[in-house]
């Protein structure tokens, strides 16, 4: 079983955490995520123009690039992580940095560094040829996003060629503080799970353990990003401690969500 499949085969829902590569002491932060109990880690590839992100992750992108983070650095971080941990690692970002040296190069680097999956925000199924075939050839999951605007007519296109898990973006909007209504999440997850056998993880606007627990009662995974990235902004080089504490609180809530239901 792949690392991603194992993470979603655990007897409890998965906590998926996001941080930006090169923002703060990334190796220490990744270790803190694992120690806190994250089941899947998304590592953001910084980009100058993060169109789908709100202020917190935009700022993290700029801090990472300002610190001189390169694509080579990101793969070094990923390879270092893989040498220390078995937790699945997913790269998340935008098309231009991923394709700058061609999709084959990118997929090959992912494979070498032990990256399990890729989420590319701005390559929809219509343009799959730019990235999908290269990833599939190397056995790297292509994780697609479904959104509140993905209706029944749209969903089959998204699912075709998706692997790893399906990421449900619970708000029509950018990453950050806006939260979806719980009822709308439940309805959407039910609809998605009826259409696919892939695990469904829900993200965007999830910040607190209670909220994460509520979502984990219906979804296979819960994604938390901006709240962790804000801790890195606030604590800088000392962020690992607070990141671990928040991750542990979230993990406890998510892992036990169904026991309490």
């Amino acid at each position, binding site marked *: 079983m792949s690392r991603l499949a194992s993470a979603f085969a655990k007897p409890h829902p998965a906590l998926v955490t996001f941080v930006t590569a090169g923002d703060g002491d990334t190796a220490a932060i990744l270790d803190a995520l694992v120690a806190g109990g994250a089941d899947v880690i998304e590592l953001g590839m910084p980009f*100058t*123009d993060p169109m789908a992100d709100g202020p917190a992750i935009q700022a993290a992108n700029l801090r990472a690039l300002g610190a001189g983070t390169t694509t080579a650095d990101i793969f070094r971080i990923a390879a270092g992580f893989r040498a220390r941990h078995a937790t699945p690692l997913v790269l998340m970002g935008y098309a231009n940095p991923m394709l*700058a040296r061609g999709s084959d190069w990118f997929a090959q680097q992912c494979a070498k560094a032990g990256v399990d999956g890729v989420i590319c925000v701005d390559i929809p199924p*219509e343009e799959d040829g730019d990235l999908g075939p290269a990833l599939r050839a190397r056995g790297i999951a292509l994780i697609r996003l479904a959104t509140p605007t993905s209706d029944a007519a749209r969903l089959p296109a998204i699912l075709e060629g998706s692997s790893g898990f399906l990421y449900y973006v619970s708000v029509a909007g950018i990453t950050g503080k806006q939260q979806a209504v719980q009822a709308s999440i439940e309805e959407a997850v039910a609809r998605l799970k009826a259409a696919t056998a892939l695990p469904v993880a829900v993200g965007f606007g999830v910040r607190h353990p209670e909220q994460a627990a509520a979502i984990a009662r219906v979804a296979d995974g819960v994604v938390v990003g901006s709240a962790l990235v804000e801790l890195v902004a606030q604590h800088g080089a000392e962020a690992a401690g607070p990141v671990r504490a928040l991750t542990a609180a979230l993990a406890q809530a998510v892992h036990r969500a169904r026991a309490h239901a």
Partner: protein
Amino acid sequence: MNAPAAGTNSLRNQPDERGHFGAFGGRYVAETLMPLILELEREYARAKADPAFAAQFDDLLEHYVGRPSPLYFAPRLTGELGGAQVWFKRDELNHTGAHKINNCVGQILLAMRMGKTRIIAETGAGQHGVATATVCARFGLPCVVYMGATDVERQQPNVFRMKLLGAEVVPVTSGAATLKDAMNEALRDWVAHVHDTFYIIGTAAGPHPYPELVRDFQSVIGKEARAQMLARTGRLPDLLVAAIGGGSNAIGLFHPFLDDPVRMLGVEAAGHGLDKQHAASLAGGRPGILHGNKTYLLQDEDGQITEAHSISAGLDYPGIGPEHAWLKEIGRVEYTSATDTEALAAFQLLCRTEGIIPALEPSHAIAAVRRIAPTMGKDQIILANLCGRGDKDIFTVAKALGAEL
């Protein structure tokens, strides 16, 4: 609007049904926006086939925008350059002072057809922002314009105009706080307001179908110019010249001539020089993906977008519309560039020789005309797009020339 159907070998048949111009274009947007873009594509196809839509568009262009714009032979500039005859398509005489309004009229009609009740736009020089604010006032729709904080600073008269017209101008401080960052912010607004909002993109770029529909609306420039030139001289021009930011005024002039034996030259902004900071994505960039399309971009080896520079805020963008990327690759259109200094000199030349104060954007085209006209015969004709007037640039030019206002 309805162009005569082009034959199968025509260069006017792009893009393909997936929105690709050869290897360029496409629809590279977040999944949230995909259904909207597909809906826009369907609705635009219906509008194109609807004579009532064309009639409404033509009527507004005639009575509100003031079209057709004149085709003007520039005798003293021609004399001064001592070569080919120089003619201008006078789109700077349009209502709001630039070609941008042609596109805004078309897009707001589409927005209303689609039942959208809120309009957003990005702007660099402020010309597209003013044109969008104008059509929003005309049709009574609320309008939010995203503008880089740097541009808000250097284009104050246009900021005030937009406010007078009832638009909300939101200064964008991320990145270099110029056009590219304003476009990021407009896209962020759009994903958060998918149900009621229409995004009026200001140039022939962005995800399909924008490059196509902006080109179609701007093609009124080339269609008029072609007919006017034939009526006045009985022949086609030898060379077309236009400045390129995202490429909308250039493609608007070029497209109706693509199947004719006419040379074409697009002029990018070389800023401080091609070896320094500039905005010439064809000359100094390579293909990549940004703002919904695959095209030439200024970027580093990791695919990070680099900041453009031009004295002209309207050309200060690190990308270019995908149809130009394709026309360059197939060799149908030639592309060159002009520096800030050359544009400033051309700006003053046109003021002195023709009594026309051009915008800094077409001043780049005039700079290229100045280089080329003397190398051509006196019986040859250059047609350049005078796509904007210079009122908005008076402060920038004064500063560059060291004058106190």
